[in-house]
């Protein structure tokens, strides 16, 4: 085995890193992205994570930040913890708001300060990790459609998006031999790896959990 390996990352690895938590998903994602090996991802994964309209990391981060801002607005408007809890019922962060309220002794200033602080830490850490991804992971643009391989993969992999990810990894394999595709999802690509490998330049498909 060469000293430096080439990893092609599925979007769930990037997601696990951006929204890092020290658990079964976050720890291996961090190990993969911050290790010494070469990391790659394709345009498809990039769009899935950071695309302007539908990128999951960006849209979810924006949504959560927006809800924290709305929580502060609710406090400014109604000066009431009960109204904040009522307003937050329709938000994704309602459980988080309940947790913050529970530790703030109904003191509005302390509550506001804690909400702001949690939002700021969340934003800062996501931004910092986005920068590390920019630095550590090479973005690769595939120029070829690989129609023949696509047709074979179509019979094996039901999700067309997964086929695009495999083809991106295969294309990187032309430039960087022995490419390993790493995914957090044990179904789809991983389950069908024995059928995928013979038709592509991918050396192996590995599960994220292998990098704990």
């Amino acid at each position: 085995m060469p000293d430096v390996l080439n990893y092609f990352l599925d979007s769930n690895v990037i997601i696990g890193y951006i929204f890092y938590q020290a658990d079964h998903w976050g720890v291996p994602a961090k190990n993969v992205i911050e290790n010494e090996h070469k990391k790659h991802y394709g345009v498809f994964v990039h769009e899935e994570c950071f695309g302007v309209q539908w990128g999951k990391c960006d849209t979810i981060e924006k949504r959560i930040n927006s809800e924290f801002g709305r929580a502060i607005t609710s406090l400014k408007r109604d000066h009431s913890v009960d109204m904040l809890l009522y307003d937050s019922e329709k938000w994704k962060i309602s459980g988080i708001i309940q947790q913050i309220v529970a530790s703030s002794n109904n003191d509005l200033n302390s509550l506001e300060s804690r909400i702001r602080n949690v939002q700021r830490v969340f934003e800062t850490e996501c931004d910092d990790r986005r920068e590390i991804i920019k630095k550590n992971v090479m973005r690769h643009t595939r120029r070829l459609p690989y129609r023949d391989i696509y047709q074979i993969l179509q019979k094996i992999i039901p999700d067309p998006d997964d086929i695009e990810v495999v083809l991106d990894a295969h294309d990187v394999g032309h430039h960087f031999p022995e490419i390993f595709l790493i995914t957090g999802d044990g179904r789809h690509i991983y389950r069908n790896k024995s059928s995928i490998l013979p038709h592509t330049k991918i050396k192996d498909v590995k599960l994220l959990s292998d990098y704990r």
Partner: protein
Amino acid sequence: MDIVKNANFYGSKYYKQYHFYKLLFLVYFELKKVDIDIKLPYSWYFFGDLPDAQTFEYMTGGSLGYYTPGQGMLPRIDQLPDLGIEEPTRKKIDDVVKNEYSKITANGRFRKDYGDILLKSTYDEAPFEFQRVFNRGLLQYVQKFKTEEGQSTLTVLRFDFTELSKIGRFLDELMVVYPEDEMPEIYDLFLRWEDTVRLTILEDHSKLIVVIENFWETFCGLLRIKKNENVLPHVVEQWEKEYFTTTLPDYEMKLKKLRKTLLHNHFEANPVGKNTRDTVDNVMKLARDLALETQEAKGA
């Protein structure tokens, strides 16, 4: 012309383009109340109303700049041309113009604070309370901390506790009155900006004024697209194109950069405590679950 004629009577030396624009709007607004629509093409912008010169020229064949050259003297208009306006209408117009002048003059002279009176009267008609709180409240308050040269980034500038509390109260009010239904495009940006002002209060007072002014400009860029009357459609389209392709992305990038610096400075001085750490971990887990959930839903 009626407005300029009256202004000359009081002395053109003190009567600037800015005052003409405010008065033009107020006259337009008052005339509407007596069923006279002069179809003034204007939008809401940085300092209240702003007549649109391009549409004005298209509508009248004359240049708006003729009446109020940027830095120069006003033209002298002693005799109004006969535009074929019927006498009762002519009288209504005269009355409205004279009435508006009476509010800013005393004993045949402009009152000392007539610029402020005009601006306040204009803002009384503003479509959003947010404009009044921002322009006549927060912006006006922080302007007084600028140097005479208009410099707003003095590194030595420090606000005291009372001043910061006052700025904080303006921010509180702005959060309550932001017109979310009519200006949803930049609501999240506004929330981010508001928190950034709070961060400058904590970390770097020298940035405070410029952060406030820059958001006002960005807000007004969208405001003029949403709140205008009688302006040619292609002019509004041009504003819109410029705003969404240049003005807004540029501002977002600038704010993001500044915010990042402020946040890093803030957390260097204030390490994250255990309570906050635990909560942030839960937020991260929530965000990840949401992201992976949408991925699964898409694959299902």
